[in-house]
């Protein structure tokens, strides 16, 4: 797994940084020359993960969200989104579609969307320590356009 390029970003858990997170990840992924659809999939997944940090992990406080984006040899993108918030007690349960601890406000579809929009997702979490979501997606390499 050779890393071709990598960036690390951190920002405050303010909701107006959600769109910033999407922009940063897209700007980095651009080097693989994706289509709008591929880009939209990645942005949607990033949005879900970042929103979870803001509304769940740092529900009662302002915290820092960390993102690492890697371009892996062969056209794969790996995105890690990490918080130092409350953590998830039961990961399996949390990942069930429609499961939410915030009924009434949230749909409980965040993880389902991440799973469906990315090729792979891994969740690591420790109560009181925080959560790391690692997602991967391959960008289809097209006949290199004549640049």
């Amino acid at each position: 797994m050779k890393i071709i390029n990598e960036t690390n970003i951190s920002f405050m858990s303010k909701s107006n940084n959600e769109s910033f997170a999407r922009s940063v990840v897209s700007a980095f992924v651009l080097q693989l020359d994706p289509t709008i659809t591929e880009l939209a999939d990645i942005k949607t997944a990033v949005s879900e993960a970042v929103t979870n940090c803001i509304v769940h992990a740092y529900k009662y406080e302002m915290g820092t969200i960390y993102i690492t984006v890697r371009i892996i040899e062969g056209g794969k993108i790996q995105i890690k989104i990490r918080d130092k918030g409350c953590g998830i007690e039961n990961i399996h349960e949390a990942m069930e579609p429609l499961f939410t601890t915030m009924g009434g406000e949230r749909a409980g579809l965040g993880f389902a969307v991440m799973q469906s929009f990315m090729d792979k997702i891994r969740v690591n979490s420790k109560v009181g320590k925080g959560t790391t979501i690692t997602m991967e997606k391959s960008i289809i390499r097209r006949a290199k356009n004549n640049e």
Partner: protein
Amino acid sequence: MSNRDEFINDNLGLVHACCKRFTGRGIEYDDLYGAGCLGLVKAYDNFDKSRGLMFSTYAVPVILGEIRRLFRDGGAVKVSRNLKELSLKTNRANSAFIAEHGREPTISELSEILGVSPSDVSEALCAGQLPLSLTASDDENENGAQLDIPVDAPEEKLSELLSLKQVVGELPPNDRSLIVLRFFKSHTQMETAKELGMTQVQVSRREKKILLELREKLTV
């Protein structure tokens, strides 16, 4: 309506005609129109019938002048506007390309078609995209509201809706099977495709659509 109002009203077509020449240049139509109307009012107030000129002959340059001022007055064009316009153009170019080539263009192809850099295309897409995340929708179209004002959720309606059975039950049979297989039985897209007689790509597309629809229903 006074004479003046009426006259101005009757001549709004002139403003539209003038505005058309300036679309797609970073300033939104409403603002072009606003400036154009200002020009029209100025033209009316200063128009001197005794000079034997047609009103429109006199008014058009005045209207154009007001509109041009928008562009001159400082690169005062907001980036956010420009990006929104570019995002519309990008989406149009994307559809046109698909229609012509039967496949989606890459960002670099779009950037060549539109004559802007790939990063501008991506920034425009971010600015124009309706965010799918719930909280994000609050601040996307505003310029960075600092406070996230929670939407006053109609609690009862939501909790009703939230009954899992009901929402999934409302799906058409095929979609229901797809969701149940994929998420309640944890089948892969490949396995699901086999069982439903679809291709994996079809499953993937359908699943995304359903998830987004479910989400919309659940968050009305």
